[in-house]
C-alpha cells in the first residue's frame, strides 16, 4: 500500500507495479497528483524544463497500469499486524459521485446552482467531485438538481462513507507537505491587502489565466517577491529552510519578466539558495537586467498605501528603514509537515523528527524506524519534484526487496 498519490507516491507505486507487485494507492483527495497539480508551467516561448507537464504523464501511467488500484477520498484509519502482514482499515469519505459510472459529461456542472461541482484537477480518474462545503444539499437544502441531471445516474447525494479492510505486505508513506499558511504571519497582510498573494496562489493564477491577475483597477508594473515566508523563521516555529522557494520563485519571475518587458521585479531575500546551481542566479540576473533588483533583507511588514496598494517596509544595508510601494507582492511560502502526519506516524508506529517529519536514515533514505514501512517525498522533509521522484524510486526498491524477502 502506498499512502499519498503525489509525485513520490506515484513514483513508488509505478516502480512497484513495474516489478509485478500489486499496489493499493490511497489518497485522501478526490484526484491523484498531489501538489504537482497546483503548479504552473514556467515556460513561455520555449520549454524551460520545469517538468511540471511531465507530472501529468506520470499520472496517465498510473491510470493505465493494471497493477495499481487507486483509492481516492480515502484515509488510513488504523494499522495492525506485523511487517509483511499488515492489516489496514481504510475510511472512505462520502463521495456522492460513483466512479464507475461518471463519464465526466459535465451536465451536473452546468446545472449546479452553487458551483459546487468541479472536474478532476488532474484528470485521473475522470470523475467529477462535489465540494461538500459549497453543495446546497450538504448545507441542508433540498436541492437534487445534479442527481436528476446526471444521464448515468451516477450521483447519489445520500451515499455514505464506507470502511474497507485489507492486508498488505509493506507500506510506503508519501503524504507530502502542507504549504505554509501566510495568514499565520499577519505582518505580511496576506488576504488583507489586495495584490498580496502566496506563491502557490500565483502559480494557480498563472496556470489558469496564463498570467498574474492584478487587483481590479490596477495594472502590474511593480512586483515584489518576499522570500522565506514560513521558512527560517523561529517565530513561527520553522527553523529549517524549505529548499525549493528560491528555485520556484525564480521560475515564476523569469516567466513574468518575459511576459511583461516593462515589469520591475524586486526580490527581498536573506540568502539566495538555488536548488539547481546550474540555473539562473538572482544577483547575476539583477546586475545584467535593469528591471530586476535583489535586496538582502527580510521585510518587517506589508502595509496598505493610501490607494490600497501593498507597501513593503524593510531595513536595507546600513540599517536605514525604507518603504516601497508595489502593485503586487508574492509571498514565497515554505513547506510544513502535512496535516495529520503526527497522527498517522503514531498509528503506524513511526518516529518523527523534532521538526515534525518522518524520521529516515541517511544511509537508507526510504527506511523508517519500523521494518516493512518506508517513506518518501516531502513527508520526510522539504524537497523538490526531482528528489521526491528519486525517493519514490528508492522506496519502491526497498519495499520490493522487503516483499521478495531478499537479504
Amino acid at each position, binding site marked *: 500500500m502506498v499512502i499519498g498519490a503525489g509525485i513520490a507516491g506515484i513514483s513508488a507505486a509505478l516502480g512497484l507495479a513495474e516489478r509485478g507487485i500489486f499496489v493499493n494507492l490511497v489518497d485522501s483527495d478526490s484526484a491523484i497528483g498531489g501538489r504537482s497539480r497546483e503548479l504552473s508551467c514556467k515556460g513561455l516561448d520555449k520549454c524551460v524544463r520545469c517538468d511540471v507537464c511531465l*507530472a501529468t504523464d506520470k499520472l496517465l501511467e498510473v491510470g493505465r497500469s493494471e497493477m495499481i488500484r487507486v483509492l481516492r477520498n480515502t484515509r488510513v484509519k488504523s494499522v495492525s499486524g506485523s511487517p509483511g502482514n499488515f492489516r489496514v482499515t481504510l475510511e472512505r469519505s462520502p463521495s456522492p459521485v460513483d466512479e464507475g459510472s461518471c463519464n465526466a459529461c459535465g451536465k451536473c456542472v452546468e446545472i449546479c446552482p452553487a458551483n459546487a461541482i468541479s472536474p478532476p484537477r488532474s484528470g485521473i480518474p475522470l470523475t467529477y467531485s462535489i465540494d461538500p462545503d459549497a453543495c446546497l444539499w450538504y448545507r441542508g437544502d433540498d436541492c437534487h438538481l445534479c442527481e436528476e441531471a446526471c444521464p448515468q445516474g451516477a450521483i447519489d447525494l445520500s451515499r455514505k462513507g464506507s470502511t474497507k479492510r485489507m492486508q498488505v505486505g509493506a507500506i510506503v508513506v508519501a503524504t507530502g507537505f502542507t504549504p505554509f499558511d501566510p495568514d499565520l504571519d499577519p505582518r505580511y497582510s496576506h488576504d488583507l491587502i489586495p495584490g498580496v498573494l502566496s506563491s502557490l496562489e500565483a502559480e494557480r493564477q498563472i496556470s489558469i489565466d496564463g498570467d498574474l491577475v492584478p487587483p481590479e483597477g490596477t495594472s502590474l508594473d511593480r512586483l515584489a517577491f518576499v522570500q522565506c515566508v514560513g521558512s527560517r523563521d523561529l517565530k513561527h516555529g520553522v527553523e529549517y529552510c524549505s529548499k525549493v522557494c528560491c528555485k520556484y520563485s525564480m521560475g515564476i519571475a523569469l516567466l513574468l519578466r518575459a511576459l511583461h518587458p516593462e515589469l520591475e521585479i524586486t526580490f527581498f531575500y536573506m*540568502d539566495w539558495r538555488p536548488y539547481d546551481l546550474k540555473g539562473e*542566479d538572482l544577483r547575476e540576473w539583477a546586475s545584467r537586467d535593469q528591471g530586476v533588483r535583489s535586496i538582502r533583507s527580510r521585510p518587517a511588514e506589508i502595509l496598505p498605501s493610501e490607494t490600497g496598494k501593498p507597501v513593503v517596509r524593510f531595513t536595507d544595508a546600513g540599517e536605514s528603514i525604507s518603504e516601497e510601494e508595489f502593485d503586487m507582492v508574492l509571498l514565497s511560502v515554505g513547506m510544513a509537515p502535512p496535516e495529520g502526519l503526527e497522527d498517522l506516524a503514531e498509528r503506524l508506529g513511526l518516529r518523527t523528527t523534532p521538526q515534525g517529519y518522518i524520521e529516515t536514515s*541517511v*544511509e537508507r533514505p526510504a527506511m523508517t524506524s519500523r521494518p516493512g514501512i518506508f517513506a518518501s517525498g516531502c513527508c520526510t*522533509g522539504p*524537497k523538490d519534484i526531482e528528489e521526491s521522484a528519486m525517493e519514490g*524510486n*528508492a522506496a519502491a526498491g526497498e519495499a520490493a526487496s522487503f516483499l521478495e524477502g531478499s*537479504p
Partner: protein
Amino acid sequence: MTLPTGSEAVALSSPGRARSRRPRIRPEKDLTERIGVFLCRCGGSVDGRLDIDAVRERVSSMDGVETCLVMDYPCSKEGREAIIGAIGEHDLDRFVVAGCSPKVVDERFMTVARESGVNPFMVEIANIREHCSMIHRHDEATSKAIKLVKAAVSKCSLLVPAPYARTRAEREEVLVYGNGMSAMVAVDELLSEGGKVHLVVPFDPKNLVFNYHDGITPGHLEAMRDRILDSDMVTVYGPGSVHMFQGDPENFRALLRSGEEWKEIGCGAAIVAWEAEEVPPLSVDGVNVITQADLEHLLEEEKVPRSTVMITMFEEDDPYPGRITHIEALRNALRIKVMDPGAEVTIVARDVLAFGMRELDYIEAQSKGVRFVRTGSFPRMIEGSPFIVVVEDETIGEELAIEADLVTMTSWDQPFDTDHIGKVFGAPVDENGYFIPTQVKLKPTASIREGVYLCGTGVESKTPSEVVLEARSAASRAMTLVRSEIERGGAVAEVDPELCSACLTCVRSCPFSAPFIGETGKAEIDIGLCQGCGICAGICPSKAIQLFTSTDDQISVQTEMLTGGRDL
C-alpha cells in the same frame, strides 16, 4: 590507455554482437486491408454534442471500411470484448477508435489488438472528444469529427505492421562503473535487491576512500566497501575500465579492461556512478591556505587554530561553490567551537547555502559565535603573522580586516574522463564535463540511452546524503528494468536500402546512436536503440528513412483529409 588489439576488436564485432538483429515478429494475421471503425458516444460528451450518426454514415462508405460501429464505451470491458468480436467476425487486420485522447487510451486498444492477433501498431486513435465535441458548437464539431475520423481511417489504410517484440533482459547482471561513493552505494542497493553486479573501478578498489561523511555513520561506507569487495554476487574489475558498451537492455555487451586482460561481459543494465574530483585551491604567498578536508585532519589531531577564516567562494567570477562547501564549513566551524569556544571562526560567503535541515547547523553556528560575512567580492589577503583578510561586509556596508592564522578555501569540483566515458556509454556531457541526464525531474538518474543510469557528482554537485539517495534510486531503476518486460520496436525508423546513399547524416544526427552502416554498406537502424523521434527521417537527404507509424504517405494523406484537399 591501451586499446583492444586487432583480434580482440574483431571478437567484439563478430556476428555474436547482434547489432542488427530484428525483434521477432509475432505470428499475425495476413494483411487483408480490412478496417474496422469504432465510434465512442462517451455517454453524451461526444454523442449529443455532435451528430455521431452523421459521422458513421460518412465514414462507413470509405474504401476498406468493413464495419463502423457506434458504441457506448469502447474502452470499457464490454466495449473491448465487442471490438475483439468484430475483428473476428469481419476478419479485420487494423482498426480506428474515435473517442478521447490517445494519451489516455492507446495502451488499452493496443492490448485489444495483441489479444486478437492484430499488430498493435495498426491501430489509430482519433480524438473527437477533447479536441472536438467539447470545444466546438454542434455542427462545427460534427464536420470536424468527420474530418478527424476520415484522416485516421486514411492513415490506417496505409499502415504496415511494425516489427515489435516484448522480451526480457537475457542477463540480470548490472554493470557498475564508478570511482567513489555513489558506486559503492549503488552496488549495495543492487545487492540488497538480490542483484548480481560487475563492478569496474579505475584503480585498486581497496583504495576507495570517502572524504566527506555528512551525517553518515563513521565507518559505514568503509564497511560497505569491504562487504561489497567480499561478496560472491559481485565480480570486481580493478584497476579496470570500460571501453565499449553496445546493445540494448535485452542484451548489453561491454568490453572491459581489467589489469592487463581484456574481458567481454553481458548485462541487462549499466550504472555510471562517476564522481567529480577535487581540485585544490590556489596557494597564496605568505598565507596559510588549506582545504576543509585538510582542516578536518588538523582537527582530528586536535590542532585547533585560534582564528580561522573560511572563504567559501571562488576568485573567478563564480559565486557558487559546490553543494557540500557550506555544509563542510559549518561542520568544521562547529567542531572548532566545541573544542575551543574561545577560538574565532569567520565564514565568508555570498550566500550561506544551508539547504533544508542544514539550516539547523547554521543556527547553531550563529549561537556559538561563528561570524558570517556576506560579500559579493573575493577577499584580499595581506601577508604577515598573523596575516590579515580584508573583506567587504555587504550587510553593514563596511570593509572589515580580520586577523587570521589559518584560511580555508574551497576546492573546485571537476569531473574528469566523463567525456570519454560518455562516448562509451552513449551519455552526452555538457561543456563543463558533467553528464546530462534525460528528464531530470521525473526520470531522475536515467540517461538518454535506455538501460544506462547515471549518478554521482559527475552529474551535478551534491552532498553525500544526496549521493546516497541518487545512487539507491539509480540502482532501484536498474533492477526494475532487468526484471520487467521490455518492449522493443513499434514506432521505429526503417531505411530503404535502395534509396540510401550511406552519407552518414543519420548516423551523425541520431541522439541514441541507433543508425549504423551495415554489412551491405547501407544504413540500418538498431531497433533496440531507436526511440522513434523521427530526426533521421526528417534529415535524410535521400528521403530513405521512414518511421513505421508516420511515413510521409501517411502524413500527407492525413493532412489532405484534414485540410479538405478532397472528398469533403
